């Protein structure tokens, strides 16, 4: 099936290419700070892709939560532990690396060959239910999903207490 070269396709290809390059950069850079910045870029582009899927609410949440909160936490820890350029782990060759790359590529080929051809003809139809509407998201979250919501709030409370306990300096 020839791919039609529409404007949407060009925009998607640009965003997807940027996201894929940034994902490779996360793994390939030896400097942890550069990996973190690549991941920030990847999450930002992913927010744009959520917008292109008309899930605007989650696109905004993606940018705020991931690039705004989680990645700041990562960069704080990298700087606290001084893991920037001065602390590169020495490169040693072991058999883990080619085997890992082989398994990763095998996984990608297996998944893609099984799933991607099935949905090659699934075009986007007009949106009937507003996925990205914050009103709809809020109503669903507080009616059908109120028990998971409360469970997540409890999990976050336990996470706060646990991370404070773990990161606290021991009194000796």
């Amino acid at each position, binding site marked *: 099936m020839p791919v039609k070269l529409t404007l949407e396709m060009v925009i998607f290809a640009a965003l997807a290419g940027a996201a894929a390059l940034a994902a490779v950069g996360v793994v390939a850079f030896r400097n942890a700070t550069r990996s973190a910045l690549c991941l920030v870029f990847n999450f930002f582009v992913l927010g744009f892709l959520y917008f292109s899927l*008309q899930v605007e609410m989650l696109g905004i949440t993606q940018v705020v939560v991931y690039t705004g909160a989680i990645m700041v936490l990562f960069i704080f820890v990298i700087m606290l*532990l001084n893991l920037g350029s001065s602390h590169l782990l020495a490169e040693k060759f072991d058999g883990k690396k080619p085997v890992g790359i082989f398994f990763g590529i095998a996984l990608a080929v297996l998944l893609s060959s099984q799933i991607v051809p099935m949905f090659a003809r699934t075009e986007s139809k007009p949106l009937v239910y507003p996925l990205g509407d914050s009103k709809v998201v809020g109503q669903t979250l507080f009616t059908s999903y109120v028990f998971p919501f409360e469970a997540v709030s409890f999990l976050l409370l336990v996470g706060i207490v646990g991370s404070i306990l773990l990161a606290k300096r021991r009194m000796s």
Partner: protein
Amino acid sequence: MNGVPLSAYLGLSMFMFSTGVIGVIIRRNPIVIFMCIELMLNAVNLAFLSFARYKFATAEGSLESAMGGPMFVIFVMAVAAAEVAVGLGIIMAIFRLRENIDVDELNLLKG
């Protein structure tokens, strides 16, 4: 988006997931391993949302089934935030104890 098939989004999602798997296997810096786990979680989020948009938010779906994908993405984000906070706390504790964070040399729990 019009003209972009669902398989394009799924292909990107699988590429990101496989890249994360490779990173978890070959990298030795635990912070980079954490970042690769985040990459995998986001790949799954993208798959959730693209399925919700292409398969369930159109005329043949229902509001209840269409909102399943976004709800799962919200919960994945919340659990990822909790996981990152606790995991980075563990990394800091290990770093204070050992002054070395190469995961290949952390074999304290080996029997």
